[in-house]
């Protein structure tokens, strides 16, 4: 347990200097307004694929009525699996058809989408293009400011600079509805704001 804690702490510590550096090292972040209605519309287009609602609905059915304790346990399991060879939860989620679909979408975006993940009604991951640090997003703004706020809610977070790629990133989150216009989950798409800016500029 103490060992695990040390690892988490180390991870946090390792990430913090980058953020600080990126903020300090960036010149000026492109405006998050770049993520306009057109971008949202495009996003909604590929979200209309039935695999999205199908996958969310089936996970909602699976975890629909679990307790917060179970959710916390699952999240803890996820974090632990990240460092393990055996990854039942992670492997299942990342190899799910929705994850495949999202990976394909990300691949097809030509570097526009840095990361895509879709959450269920509990804020638990359903599918994702790359591995996330945790399984449960329910305690974060990207979920709390979308799913709970109803349909057509789009939450665009503050842009962040990525040191590895030297690009600005922005996370755009929105509520996902089913055919009956009922909220079933949420999506977070991390845009390469730099690329978006470049595309807009060259357009």
């Amino acid at each position, binding site marked *: 347990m103490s060992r695990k804690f040390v690892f988490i702490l180390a991870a946090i510590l390792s990430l913090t200097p980058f953020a600080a550096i990126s903020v300090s090292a960036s010149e000026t972040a492109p405006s998050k307004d770049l993520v306009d209605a057109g971008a949202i519309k495009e996003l909604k287009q590929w979200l209309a694929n039935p695999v999205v609602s199908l996958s969310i609905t089936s996970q909602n059915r699976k975890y629909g009525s679990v307790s917060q304790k179970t959710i916390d346990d699952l999240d803890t399991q996820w974090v632990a699996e990240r460092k393990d060879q055996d990854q039942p939860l992670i492997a299942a989620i990342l190899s799910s058809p*929705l994850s495949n679909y999202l990976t394909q979408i990300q691949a097809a975006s030509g570097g526009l989408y840095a990361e895509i993940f879709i959450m269920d009604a509990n804020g638990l991951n359903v599918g994702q293009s790359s591995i996330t640090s945790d399984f449960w997003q329910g305690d974060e703004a990207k979920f709390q400011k979308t799913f709970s706020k109803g349909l057509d809610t789009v939450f665009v977070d503050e842009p962040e600079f990525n040191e590895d790629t030297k690009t600005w990133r922005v996370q755009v989150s929105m509520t996902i509805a089913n055919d009956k216009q009922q909220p079933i989950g949420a999506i977070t798409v991390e845009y390469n704001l730099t690329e978006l800016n470049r595309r807009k500029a060259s357009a």
Partner: protein
Amino acid sequence: MKFLNNLKIAKKLALSFAVLVIVTAAMAIVAFSSISEIEKADENGRTASELQTTYLNFQKSFLEQRQALLYFLLTGDRTGLAKFEELNGTTDQLHTELSELSSGNETFAKLVTNFTQFYQQWKDNYANVQVGLMRNYLTVNQARAIEVSGEPEAVIARMGAIVQELGTGIDEILSQSLAQKSSAISKFSVSIITALVAMVAASFVCGFSLTRAIAAPIGRMTSRMSDLAEGKLDTEIDGAERRDEIGEMARAVLVFKENAIEQIRLEAEAKRTAEEQEKREQAERDREAKREADERAREQAENAAREERAEKISDLIQTFEARVQEVMKTVNLATNELRVTATSMTDTANTSQDLSKAVAMASEEASANVQTVAAAAEELTSSINEISRQVQQANDVSEQAVNEAASSTQSVTRLAETAKKISDVINMINDIAGQTNLLALNATIEAARAGEAGKGFAVVASEVKSLATQTARATEEIGSQINDMQTATDDAVTAIGNIDGVINTIRESTVSISSAIEEQSAATNEISRNVQEASNGTTEVSSKIGEVSVKTGETGAAASQVLSASTRLEELSGNLRQDIETFLKEVRAA
């Protein structure tokens, strides 16, 4: 057992076999019912087994199909799709077969219907959709997502539950049919063993009963019959109260036994009767002789007295009387003998009739009992010989009676002539009396003329006159007496004529008796011959005995005629005797 004794043997046998047939039939019915139960259980088991095979094949085909789909979903390899589609046909085919097979069982049919619903749901809503989505790479994820959603799995799980239920049901039916079969087989075995035991028991009971009811009594009867044949007549014949053939046999044997006893009794009786008859006749003859002697002595004494009393006409009367007495005695004797003969004939005829009746009865009762008939025929022959002898005797006697009657007639005629001569003498006496009377009258007149001197003469004349008158009166009386006597003799002649006629009738009767006896004798000979020659001619014997009976009746009738004739003869001779006695008494009185 008593009930069994009263049944005919055929019915006994039929009853015994009926018992065996019933037991066999019951066994067959139980066996058939057991076999049909086994067949039914087999049929149920076969159906269930077929259903099970089909359902297992279906399950296998379905799982392979699903595996192919999953392979296709995972890899996108079209060989998986090809296999899926190929198996789709097989699965559908098996599914149709399953539906058809389960249609006989309501529960299974319902289960299969539910199953079909889920199967169709899986195929239409998931499998086919997934296959469609897998055709394009953009929708591959959707197809897989459908699988991941767990919905197809849920439907398959429900199908599985139904299939499980179906399997359990089939297993249940299989075990049920097995249990049914084994119970039917054990029932079959038990029933066959029970029926065999019952059959053996029934056979034993029937055999024992039949042996007791038929064989044993027949054995006993045989030994009794042997005893009877050996002449042991005190043998007890049992079983006569039974109403079956044994009872009939016992009764028949009983009749044989009684006939044998009866035969012995009849022989003894016949012998006794003959002895008695002989004794009676002897006694009768003795009595008759004694009576005759007595009468003769008495009559001799009477004659002597009469001789003393009437000497005047004693010669004539004595002669007459002696003749008449003799005739009358003879007639009387003849009549008595006739009567005795007739009585004896009647007795003999009656005896013959009785015997012939007894013989007829005996011959009717027991055809085999020819000895009795033979004995009776012998008896009859001797009786007929006796009758023949008696009739011959009667004939002789009547001949003698005719002769005596003729001589009686002559005597009486002579008596009548003598009476006429007496009448002449009386007329002469009458004349003498008339002359004497005249002489007395003349003497009276002469005495009156003589006066006192003729007074005494007158008295004498008067006396003579009175004597003459008396004489005339006496002769008158004699004349009338003679007339009476003549009338009596005429009556006697007529009576004797009648006797003659009667005796002739008797002769005629005896002639007819003789011919009847000849016939009888011939008939008896015929019977004897028949009896000796053929024992099967009992019916003929009966008819001959009937003839004998008729002839004996005729003999009896003839004897009755003889009897009545002799009675009449006796009556007539009694009349004659009375008349003659009256006549003689009056003559004596004169």
